């Protein structure tokens, strides 16, 4: 990757992105710009294209048309999932996906930034610094007492946090977080919002969410998607007053 001092103007730049499945346009000329260090919430009814958008950014889907750039100059449509992850984009799925038959600490060890080549991995030894880093993250996401438990034994909310921990330890510049508050209690939701606020700033965070309370707690710019394109953008208060937004949400 490039030298550290260069700060890009945009961490993510999407313009005119269209993806269609058998004629149905999941994304329809979508444009979205995220600045370095920004925390951004994306809302929209089901089928608005939120997950498809994440699939395009992380290389799971190729757009039919449109531009997707990371750090101003890296054309993401040219890379696959693993390459994009190594460029510095981390993704948390809607359904928490941790590696259930590995321990909590092992999940973090695998996700930790580092050499991902086959033979380096075969001969890798965990250093004290790495162990230290894993402990820090476990404290941050409140799983210190679950270190040696199997990830599959965690509660739903704990899995969400472990996955967020895996994202952080991967040290991405851009985090894509899909419905982190789904299935969490109010208390857990509040803690998650605070955690995401804390980690943005150093890195950019894009959160897709349905829960309005959660969006309010994030206290950030909101982008509303509808039928694959951007309907409105601005503060939550402003967006909520927007005529078209009200129509889309109440019309359903």
């Amino acid at each position, binding site marked *: 990757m490039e030298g550290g001092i260069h700060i890009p103007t945009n961490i993510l730049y999407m313009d005119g992105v269209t993806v269609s499945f058998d004629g149905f346009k999941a994304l329809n000329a979508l444009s979205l710009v995220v600045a370095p260090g920004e925390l951004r919430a994306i809302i929209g009814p089901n089928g608005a294209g939120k997950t498809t958008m994440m699939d395009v950014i*992380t290389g*799971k889907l190729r757009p039919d048309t449109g531009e997707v750039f990371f750090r101003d100059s890296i054309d993401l449509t040219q890379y*696959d*999932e*693993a390459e994009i*992850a*190594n460029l510095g984009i*981390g*993704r948390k*799925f809607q359904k928490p*996906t*941790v*590696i*259930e*038959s*590995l321990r909590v*600490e*092992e999940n973090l*060890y*695998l*996700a930790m930034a580092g050499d*991902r*080549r*086959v033979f380096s*991995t*075969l*001969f*890798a*030894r*965990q*250093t*004290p610094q790495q*162990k230290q880093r894993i402990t820090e993250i476990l404290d*941050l*996401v*409140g*799983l*210190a*007492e*679950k270190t040696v438990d199997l990830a599959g034994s965690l509660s739903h909310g*704990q899995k969400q*946090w472990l996955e967020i921990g*895996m994202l952080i330890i*991967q040290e991405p510049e851009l985090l894509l977080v899909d419905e982190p508050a789904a299935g969490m209690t109010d208390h857990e939701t509040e*803690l998650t919002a*605070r*955690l995401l606020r804390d980690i943005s700033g150093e890195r950019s965070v894009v959160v897709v969410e349905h829960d309005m309370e959660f969006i309010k707690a994030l206290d950030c710019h909101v982008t509303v998607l509808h039928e694959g394109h951007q309907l409105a953008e601005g503060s939550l208060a402003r967006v909520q007053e927007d005529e078209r937004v009200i129509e889309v949400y109440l019309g359903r």
Partner: protein
Amino acid sequence: MSFASERNYLQDRGGAWLIALVTLTIVVVPILNLAVPPESPLHISTYTVSLLGKYLCFALLALAVDLIWGYAGILSLGHGAFFALGGYAMGMYMMRQIGDRGVYGHPELPDFMVFLNWTELPWYWYGFDSFPFALLMVLLAPGVLAFVFGWLAFRSRVTGVYFSIITQALTYAMMLAFFRNDMGFGGNNGLTDFKDILGFSLQSDGTKNALFIGSGIALIAGYLLCRYVVDSKLGRVLISVRDAESRTRFIGYRVEHYKLFVFVLSAMMAGVAGAFYVPQVGIINPGEFAPIVSIEIIIWVAVGGRGFLYGAVIGAILVNYGKTFFTGAFPEIWLFMLGGLFVVSTLFLPRGVVGLFHSLKKSLAEGRLKQEDEQTPMAEEKA
């Protein structure tokens, strides 16, 4: 500092038992065969030694399959092909060792080539008069096939049953090819009538015992190699691929490279197993490529317990002992039993004999823990 290996080397009791038992067997059996007079009830016949040697080869083959199936979730229904290729490589060496002692007495050509009126050795038989070259081919022939096949399949993200089906097709195609006389591998008769290996007669008890001991050492070495792989960080990546392949990609691992590595390693281990198998049974023919052979390997692993390594070894030995016994006692029902075994283990023993043992042990231990837990409720996590 690596918690990963600390945990398993200490906890790998099953593996320690396995190594101890195999070591004991390869020490005691040759003594009972060679040093104890045939009249003694403790004497083990040479036939039994070779039979046990065959089981050890199957165990190594099962181990190779468990490495990819149990840990990386790759269900290969064509692993018999790699086993057979290793066997053919060793068979070709032993054919060349026959020299002019064949029926036709040709100094260079194996009998079947003389029979086909061939006048010179095909180019792909060159070098097989050298033992080190043959050993290299035991690894390279299956390794290269697995590399090419795996590279194409994994790069195109062929997974699950689709992958299993094309591995079946692979081994079936290999069988058809090797059945052809003009392939130059002896057609449907295969390679046989071996005389000696490294100058030692294959008929002698000493050689048979040496091959038996060699098979045991290969099994132990294979076990340790697999154990190292699954306990390494790479082993964790494999489990991650097995449980959540797409997640693993998003963490930044090139899943296809990891699958390819472990698939090639497994194919080479299968090749070594084949190379020890052929001199002990005295023949290799295209029947080893038959799809049913590869499916049987899966049954061994399923019965023993997938994802434990030593489970595969136990399964291979149990099922093959059963096969030896029942094909002798009730030959007509063996295939039904084999099928029944697969159904029963899939329905009632999803983690095999070893898994059953583990869950019994665990439920005993949990019963004890539960009582303690009820006294100290779990602490709520803080953030």
